[in-house]
């Protein structure tokens, strides 16, 4: 039961799962893509994953906990970011991330919505806090350590938001963009954000 399942494309950000967790999450992901997120009964998840319903509940006592685990897992597998060497490669990763979201829209919606449950649901506690899904904060610290703290904070906030399913949702639904244009617009914005402003001439 406690065997770590390293089968999924492993990166340092991939959560380590037990076999049961992997079976449940795999089944739930398939059901979401078939039926949508709403009201997939635990009974159906149990049947699909070949795990007793009681075990599903023991593994993920609430739907919120199940969704939080699912969102973390899809971000680390289906939407895994290639490790980037430099923060200046982020526009390229953003482009790839947006393409991946467009290919699996139902999962992208789950990834977009789930972290927000923490805002309105303090009772969900630490477990509802989103795991770090990108390398951006580290890269900004490492490469732009000379920029002042405020600029670092702004960059981290802007780049992590552009590299997220939230931006994908906005470009798709509000701007009604096609997948190609979503990828282009998000990558372009990341590039613009990374350009040194006229005021800080010294920085690269």
């Amino acid at each position, binding site marked *: 039961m406690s065997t770590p399942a390293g089968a999924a494309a492993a990166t340092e950000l991939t959560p380590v799962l037990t076999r049961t967790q992997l079976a449940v999450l795999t089944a739930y992901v398939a059901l979401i893509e078939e039926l949508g997120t709403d009201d997939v009964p635990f009974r159906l998840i149990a049947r699909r994953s070949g795990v007793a319903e009681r075990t599903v509940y023991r593994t993920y006592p609430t739907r919120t906990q199940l969704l939080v685990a699912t969102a973390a897992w899809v971000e680390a597998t289906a939407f895994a970011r290639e490790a980037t060497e430099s923060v200046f490669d982020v526009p390229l990763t953003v482009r790839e991330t947006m393409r991946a979201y467009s290919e699996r829209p139902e999962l992208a919606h789950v990834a*977009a919505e789930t*972290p927000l449950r923490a805002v309105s649901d303090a009772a969900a506690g630490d477990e509802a806090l989103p795991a770090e899904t990108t390398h951006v904060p580290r890269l900004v610290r490492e490469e732009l350590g000379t920029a002042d703290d405020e600029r670092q904070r702004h960059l981290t906030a802007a780049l992590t938001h552009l590299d997220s399913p939230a931006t994908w949702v906005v470009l798709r639904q509000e701007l009604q963009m096609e997948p190609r244009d979503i990828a282009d617009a998000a990558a372009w914005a990341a590039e613009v954000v990374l350009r040194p402003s006229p005021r800080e001439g010294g920085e690269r």
Partner: protein
Amino acid sequence: MVQETRDTRSAVLAAACTLLDEVPFDDISYRVLGDTVGVAERTVFRHFPTRAHLLTGVAQRIDTLEMPFAPFRTAAEFRASTRQRFLAFDTAPRKAGVLARSAAVSPVSAPEPDFLTHAVVAVVEHELPGANRRDLRRAAGALRTFAAPLFWAHARTSLGMDGAAAADVLDVVTERVLAALRPAGEHAQSSSSSSSSSSSLPSWPLP
């Protein structure tokens, strides 16, 4: 009958908004909503077949009635309006969270651009006369995603930033996006305005 149906629907949404002051959205039950409004739980279900429908309805009410954005025409007004709204979100995080969640979930009906999007598109066209369509769309997309309740929520939950700090990021992004698409040498007409909030928006003559 049609009138009555509409009244029930808006009464349920009003009740849900009031309940949001006390409990998280996920803890609002259809039974309590029915009891509060004085209709059967079944009736509530008829209006909102799934919780996603309820979420969308509540968000629309918050968006239009409770926490609307102040209208804007220029980039400076856009920034001031969004800053004001982000500060308001800080005072009612559950309601703002509902706005963000409803934007994130798989839509219950064919999605259409909202008023905020139309206003952002107009600002971009106003600030970047002569820019091509592709650039206008890119710019509108960038501004719209950082003005979204989703960005306020991201800043708050993953980065621990408050609404003012999130608005600072929007300021920087807006400045850079517009500068990137303005012909070289041309100075921003409105990007140098103060980044602190002002309760009365400056009024700019329409072109």
